[in-house]
């Protein structure tokens, strides 16, 4: 309101009180203010929907065993020891180690083997390139359950690797469709002049890739590595197929569910475990926000 009364002073000639122009300007301003209020109240309502689940999970995670059985929303006492209890549960550290092995080694292998493929698909001209690209997209869209039965028989019977995470890790040494797709989208944005200049200077293709393209594609490599890491971190189906019979090979995703089984009624400990599994993802996100958002955008919008 104070702003509308101040307005005429700024330019008294045009906005003399009572003229049609002042009226129009006033309605425009009022409309803008209403829009600001409307948009921000909607945003606050939406953030409640996105935030409250985290809040209630956390509040329950720090409740006492007795209180977790009640309908209370706010903890009477703050039992920070719940996190330590979960951490010290037999197996929990093994799940962490296995998850880090699966996600860490899997990511290094997938990015390392997908990079040359993505480079060839983005920068080489050869017959069958479109067909190759279509196969990458088809493989990316293929539900893992389609080929799981023969794959399991192969790893369990021929390779004798059931009960380990190796059947999940080894295939990543042979390129991963989504990683190839995402890296290619990034590499397309690198102008051809750079690779051509390197070629004229006498660089072989491998050296061009390693010395010229990789340094320029660092954000893309970081984004695809993050996506792959979290794919493994979140994977439930793979560990369920290959590792479920051997508790020493369980990962966090698979172990978390069995943790609930062992603590039927202890929602506080279950939620504390849930917080401990969610936390690393969220911490990493705050350090690598840009890479995440760029990666998501490139998968949906043409690069």
């Amino acid at each position, binding site marked *: 309101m104070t702003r509308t009364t101040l307005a005429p002073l700024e330019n008294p000639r045009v906005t003399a009180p009572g003229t049609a122009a002042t009226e129009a300007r006033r309605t425009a301003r009022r409309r803008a203010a209403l829009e600001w209020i409307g*948009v*921000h109240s*909607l*945003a606050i309502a*939406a*953030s409640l929907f*996105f*935030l409250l689940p985290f809040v*209630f999970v956390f509040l*329950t995670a720090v409740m006492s065993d007795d209180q977790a*059985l*009640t309908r209370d*929303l706010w903890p009477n006492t703050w039992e920070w020891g719940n996190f330590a209890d979960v951490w010290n549960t037999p197996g929990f550290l093994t799940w962490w180690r296995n998850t880090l092995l699966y996600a860490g080694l899997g990511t290094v292998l997938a990015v390392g*083997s*997908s990079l*040359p*493929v993505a480079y*060839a698909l983005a920068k*080489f001209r*050869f017959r069958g390139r479109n067909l*190759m*690209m*279509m196969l990458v*997209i*088809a*493989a990316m869209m293929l*539900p893992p*359950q*389609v080929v799981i*039965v*023969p*794959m399991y*028989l*192969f790893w369990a019977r021929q390779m004798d690797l059931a009960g380990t995470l190796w059947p999940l890790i080894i*295939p990543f040494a*042979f*390129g991963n469709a989504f990683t190839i797709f995402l890296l290619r989208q990034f590499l397309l944005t690198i102008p051809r002049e750079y690779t051509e200049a390197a070629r004229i200077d006498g660089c072989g293709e491998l050296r061009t890739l390693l010395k010229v393209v990789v340094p320029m594609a660092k954000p893309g490599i970081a984004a695809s590595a993050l996506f792959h890491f*979290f794919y493994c*971190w979140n994977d*439930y*189906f793979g560990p*369920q197929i290959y590792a*479920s019979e051997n508790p020493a090979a369980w990962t966090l*995703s*698979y172990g*978390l*569910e069995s943790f609930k*089984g062992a603590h039927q009624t202890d*929602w506080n400990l279950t939620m504390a475990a*849930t917080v401990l*599994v969610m936390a690393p993802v*969220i911490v990493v*996100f705050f350090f690598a926000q840009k890479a*995440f958002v760029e990666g*998501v*955008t490139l*998968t*949906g*919008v*043409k690069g």
Partner: protein
Amino acid sequence: MSTVPPGLRAKRRRSALRTLGFLSPWLIGLCVFFLYPLVSTVYFSFMKYDGFTAPTWVGLKNWAYVFQDNPFFWPALRNTLWLVLVMVSLRVLFGLGIGLLITKIKTGAGVFRTLFYLPYLAPPVAATMAFVFLLNPGTGPTNTILEKVGLDPPQWFNDAAWSKPSLTILALWGIGDLMVIFMASLLDVPKEQYEAAELDGAGAWQRFRFVTLPSISPIVLFAVVTGVIATMQYYTEPLVAAKVASGVIGGSGQQFEPGYPEKSTLTVPQVVYNLGFQRFDTGAACVVALVLFALAMVFTAFLMRRRSGFMSAED
């Protein structure tokens, strides 16, 4: 070809070898982890095989069993259809709405964007367990609050009529990826078009209908098709929700009625797992896997046909 000078031919051969070298990890992976198992799946679909004794030819028996006698196949397919219709369309509408909202926010846009995006990152198992707890009819915070404001709350994951809506709410919570994609495409709409529309006297709805929508329609289509493909693979959330809500102890060797309650959370990939890894009926599992393959490839082909704007195989 015979007129090509020898020097050029050698150069061509070198470049072909170089291309093959760069593609080799993927070519090997494609054959070993994609083509070979796919052919095996077709082979096993005509075999009686329990994974231990030698497979025997049974013709179309597995196919007849899956389509006529398996108690899980048709409910799973119906659930998938429900999820495609309701979950995918709500996700696209909600993602677009949140994407629009975020582009209109003037104060604190960064904070809101982070808040809206975070749930997308929550590991599916953790997110599902959190939601089974939040929507737990006994002590869950949601029903506590709903009762406090005088509403009669549903049984959520414990009621066959509410289990899929509960999964849908969970899917809407993790809308972050769609939000970012829609946000990026909304910011790409040329500003001049809005100005021109405004000069022509278009209201907010008309500007959305005639300027925004045509410009983002390829992205909407992308979201729909990838959403349908993701629904074909929908596995972890319904399985974990059913297990935790039914109170079945997780881990190996536990018998568990798939799709609790009343097969309402059963999806096609779960039927593959049930047949192949719980009942050791490899042949029938492969039949369901092939049905899944056919469905996924129909939508992928559709996605690749609409080449304009996204998922293009060309530059």
